């Protein structure tokens, strides 16, 4: 860990350096125990291991180098924040800390107890000043995807500059028109930081860079779940971690490193080199995102003899499934239109109705030759919790085995979750046995 080398910068950012160092050490210990101890890991994971060791060191220094050159540094909690525009302006878009139970007690001094752990954790990081990303953000860009978030922005704004993008909850023409205006306003906010107009070419370049990143993530997704054989060349934990840091790393470097990894995974598939035993049940996880370092469910599944081959969540498939089609684009208005098309195809549970999500899940189940799904939802995440009923009804109709788990970041229910996961895998294995 190199946070000590960056002590001066962290102090300038107002980070509580001592507390931060302790948290980072604990986090890195957890990573070493859970990730670096895995056997038969792809060699190209070395880069991602390195990134973890520098997650709040060198990467923070890079972001602050950009800031020195008047480039935007934008912290976000949602995949609706159009990172293409930030990258186009030469800046950095990053996901803020929000997956740890260690900051929740502090957050509860200002926020109610019964809202989702992601919001509380993120808010606590700001109060504690223990996330160098939060401290580096010119703005935190909030959105209106749920009630708890949109009210939290008003409180958070007292501690850090926050701007809010109004995401509609329906996709009618009038809603999309408003949304497009929000995108234009977003662009203006970037120009306020760079103090110069953002050109069409720059924006297009931003889209290209982020498209490439999504292509690489789609490639990883295919290698994990769609090569049509029993071979799964990378563990679920490693794949989840890569997706988690796709929200933090420099997009060009990340894309290159991920493509290197995918080259190696392709080779592994050819050589029948799987990280799982043959006939390990293949699962997909649906629902709310796993913010770093929430690895609880993945750990439970992997220590119970199951494989997760896809996450249908915002830190997962929902984030990278669509690219922005810019081949024929000649002017800014049509570029904005294409961006809107991409973002409005996100099937977040904040929308009503949200049937494309259900159709997508059923399709993914078939395409990926899965054995079951786990619907994971954070406590008090009302949209995903309520939508669970619609999704599981559709799954039941198709005879797809499903397990619903609601949890938070505390380690207390790890044993209970493991029991449920194990029993779920036992029932899948039993059904498979009967079929054969």
């Amino acid at each position: 860990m190199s946070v000590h080398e960056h002590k001066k910068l962290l102090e300038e950012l107002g980070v509580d350096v001592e507390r931060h160092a302790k948290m980072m050490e604990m986090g890195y210990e957890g990573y070493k125990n859970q990730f670096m101890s895995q056997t038969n890991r792809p060699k190209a994971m070395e880069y991602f291991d390195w990134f973890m060791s520098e997650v709040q060191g060198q990467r923070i220094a890079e972001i602050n180098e950009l800031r020195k050159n008047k480039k935007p540094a934008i912290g976000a909690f949602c995949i609706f924040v159009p990172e293409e525009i930030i990258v186009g302006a030469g800046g950095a878009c990053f996901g803020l800390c929000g997956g740890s139970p260690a900051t929740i007690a502090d957050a509860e001094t200002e926020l109610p107890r019964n809202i989702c752990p992601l919001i509380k954790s993120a808010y606590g990081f700001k109060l504690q000043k223990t996330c160098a990303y939060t401290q580096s953000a010119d703005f935190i860009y909030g959105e209106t995807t749920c009630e708890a978030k949109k009210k939290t922005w008003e409180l958070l704004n007292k501690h850090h500059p926050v701007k809010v993008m109004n995401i509609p909850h329906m996709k009618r023409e009038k809603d999309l028109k408003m949304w497009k205006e929000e995108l234009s306003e977003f662009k203006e906010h970037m120009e306020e930081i760079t103090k110069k107009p953002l050109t069409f070419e720059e924006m297009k370049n931003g889209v290209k860079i982020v498209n490439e990143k999504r292509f690489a993530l789609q490639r990883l997704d295919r290698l994990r779940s769609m090569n049509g054989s029993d071979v799964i060349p990378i563990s679920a934990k490693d794949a989840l971690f890569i997706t988690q840091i796709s929200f933090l790393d420099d997009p060009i470097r990340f894309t290159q490193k991920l493509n290197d990894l995918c080259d190696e995974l392709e080779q592994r598939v050819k050589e029948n080199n799987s990280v799982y035993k043959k006939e390990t049940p293949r699962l997909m996880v649906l629902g709310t995102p796993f913010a770093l370092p929430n690895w609880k469910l993945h750990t439970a599944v992997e220590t119970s003899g199951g494989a997760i081959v896809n996450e249908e969540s915002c830190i997962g498939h929902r984030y990278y499934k669509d690219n922005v089609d810019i081949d024929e684009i000649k002017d800014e208005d049509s570029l904005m239109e294409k961006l809107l098309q991409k973002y409005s195809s996100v099937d977040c549970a904040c929308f009503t109705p949200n049937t494309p999500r259900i159709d997508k899940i059923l399709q993914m189940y078939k395409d990926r030759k899965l054995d079951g799904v786990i619907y994971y939802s954070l406590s008090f995440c009302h949209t995903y919790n309520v939508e669970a009923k619609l999704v599981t009804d559709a799954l039941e109709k198709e005879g797809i085995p499903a397990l619903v788990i609601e949890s938070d970041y505390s380690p207390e229910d790890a044993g209970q979750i493991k029991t449920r996961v194990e029993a779920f895998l036992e029932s899948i294995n039993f059904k498979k046995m009967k079929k054969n």
Partner: protein
Amino acid sequence: MYWGIDIGSTYTKICGIDKNLNIIDKEVIPTIIDQDEIVKKYLSNKEVKMLISTGYGRDMIKDALDFPTISEIKAHSRAAYHFQNSADMVIDLGGQDCKVIKLDSNGGFIDFKMNDKCAAGTGKFLEITANRIGLNYEEFSTIGFKADKELSISSMCAVFAESEVVSLISKKESAANICYAVHDAIASRIASMANKFATTSENIIFTGGGALNPFLIHLVSKKLNKKVTASTQPQISGALGAALIACEID
């Protein structure tokens, strides 16, 4: 001898059977620190042909005695089948968990529901309330039959539910009526889990510590409008199921 060890959050249950599936040995001991060593010592002078562990502490014992583990769900399903092979549903109420398991006709299970992290609707809550009222658990689990008022507790959280109990005490409600309210709340939760299967179950087995509570079984049966039978030796049911599977595997 075939052994099943069920390390629960409160008690560790040990069950040994012979090849004719007769129970030869059983033991219920409080779960404390270094439980794996205690179990190892218990088995040290016994013949162990095969052992399977289950329950919350199943992995802990795996390090001490290298035998397979299974989930409690599987263990309880197998035990229910042994007890009554026509059973098509098991309700298991333990200290920290409540499970409803839909069985298939061969001692396996089709599906299950289990409570999320929460103590309301588990045995722990019954224990806390019994203490509050100053009754021992045995009295508490029968006095509800004498209730003359159908009081209810609305809180979903054990902590708040406990304060509702306190307010009933201060209103000078009788022990029987308070007992009714608490059992009714738990029975409602169990019934709603069971109803999620849109069940056609006719033969429901109640197991775990909850099966030692006749009033609870009475209320669950009333809510489901089905006959609910307490399993024999409900406390060791998980351990027995594990032992039965150990015997099958061998």
